[in-house]
């Protein structure tokens, strides 16, 4: 029982952490940067391994944050030098991701890290990998990491709430009234990187991308308030994790893939039936007027 519970907690934490962080990126029209970063942190993890020769939590987090910020920086620099932004994203993330995958092939024998793991994670092993202090077990490491990143992200959003809001809505005006727009940008990039790497081990890159983008897009169809988009996105992330887990167990399929599909299902429902912006009600309004 506790085994299942830990897996559910992990899934929900991924949904919540990625959901709230990703929703802001969706509003900033940077969903594909989130996609890029969640691929490239693999290189950060491999890089951390080369430096420390182990796959420990903290160096991994640092490596991922560094590569995540570098990704955002490279994309920005290329874009500024005249490359269209989507092509810039494409070339940067495929390059860094390919480098990560190739490096893994060299170290794959030494550690428990392979490409399949990076893509799909191994949430089923999460409950066994516990935090040990003085012989005592304090619950899964993944849950601690995710919890930590969740607290950090929530704090950042709470502290810089209005700065994030204005630099998202009207960045030029934000610059004019003295909001540190560049700092906020890279802060968000760091939040995405941290969320990704904390989730990576348990659910892999696919689910991270799904949880970063889809709940935010879904919430955006459901509400017209900035704050509601953020919290609803977290709630939708949790709901997707629960539905996805249920489906994965009943059909005996990949838990991460199933949770990603669940985000898609909820998106489809909102796309069709959202009272404010759903296709069905929009059409009804059109025919009634």
């Amino acid at each position, binding site marked *: 029982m506790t085994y299942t519970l830990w897996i559910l907690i992990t899934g929900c934490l991924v949904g919540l952490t990625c959901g709230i962080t990703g929703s802001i990126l969706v509003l900033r029209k940077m969903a594909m940067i989130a996609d890029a970063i969640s691929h490239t942190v693999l290189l950060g993890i491999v890089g951390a391994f080369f430096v420390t020769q182990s796959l420990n939590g903290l160096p991994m987090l640092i490596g991922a944050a560094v590569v995540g910020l570098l990704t955002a920086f490279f994309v920005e620099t290329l874009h500024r030098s005249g490359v269209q932004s989507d092509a810039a994203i494409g070339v940067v993330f495929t390059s860094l991701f390919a480098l990560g995958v190739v490096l893994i092939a060299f170290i794959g024998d030494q550690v428990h890290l392979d490409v399949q793991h990076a893509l799909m994670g191994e949430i089923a092993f999460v409950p066994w990998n516990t935090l040990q202090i003085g012989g005592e077990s304090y619950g899964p490491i993944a849950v601690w990491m995710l919890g930590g990143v969740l607290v950090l992200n929530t704090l950042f959003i709470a502290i810089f709430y209005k700065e994030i809001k204005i630099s998202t809505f009207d960045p030029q005006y934000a610059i004019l009234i003295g909001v540190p727009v560049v700092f906020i940008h890279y802060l968000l990039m760091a939040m995405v990187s941290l969320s990704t790497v904390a989730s990576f081990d348990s659910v892999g890159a696919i689910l991270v991308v799904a949880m970063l983008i889809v709940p935010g897009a879904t919430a955006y169809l459901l509400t017209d308030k900035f704050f509601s988009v953020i919290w609803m996105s977290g709630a939708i992330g949790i709901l997707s994790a629960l539905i996805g887990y249920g489906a994965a167990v009943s059909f005996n399929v990949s838990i991460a893939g199933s949770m990603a599909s669940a985000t898609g299902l909820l*998106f489809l429902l909102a796309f069709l039936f959202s009272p404010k912006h759903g296709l069905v009600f929009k059409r009804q309004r059109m025919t009634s007027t």
Partner: protein
Amino acid sequence: MEAFLTSLSNANFQWVLVGSLLLGFASGVIGSFVLLKKQSLISDAMAHAALPGVCIMFLIFEVKNVPILLIGAAITSLLATQAIQFIINKSRIKTDAAIGVIISVFFGFGIVLLTYIQQNSSGSQAGLDSFIFGQAASLVKSDVQLISGGAFLLVVITVLLFKEFKLTLFDPQFAKGIGLPVSFLNGLMLFLVVAIVVIGIQMVGVILIAALLITPPLAARYWTENLGIMAILAGIFGAISGVSGAVISTTVVGLPTGPVIVLSASLIFFISLLFGTKNGFLQRRVRGV
């Protein structure tokens, strides 16, 4: 080195070389159109969306018949582009988030199907994973013939209709005015992209095939401002990447082909970025921009 020379004399390997060369060339040429249409990331979505198509066809026909699987891939790829367009047109979701939603949900669902196949079907399913990252070494002669023949055909179509495509891209209104079938040509361009993605996934994999469309044209852009020369140069860059990727990954055991091909392309891009005669980094420095 010895291993390399032995494999060179291997007939199957020679086929792989021809296939990777033609595939690289065709994707570079077609990628030039994708870049100008600003659809780099949409092509990434098409590539990811090929996975569920492959799996669905396998589930229906229960054989690993490559042409049938690839037809499935083409169907879901097309479905993904239509879905992205539909989301953008019918809701407030913007392009980047729409692409992100489709990429992650289609791919997540593909993983669900892949694990379902692994759990439930007997025997011959092995090898479907190679659609994720590509594996040149596992290609059989008929696969490579399909890749080579397909790529060759796509290049021929592109060459024959080059000036029509060019005008349609540059000024669709004018193209329509002089009587070109603009919507047919646009449809044909979409077909070319889907086709190159589909025939390329066995060698490069769905995750990184888009890089072969994005990176070589972007690199070529640093050497010329003429679309014709750019397409040819992109083709040559793509061909070099394809061949070096195939050679390296077959020689060094355990290296997946796709990431190595992409890294080769990235290296060419990086060199072009630095030394390119059109807006390259050094040249900008010299000019003092």
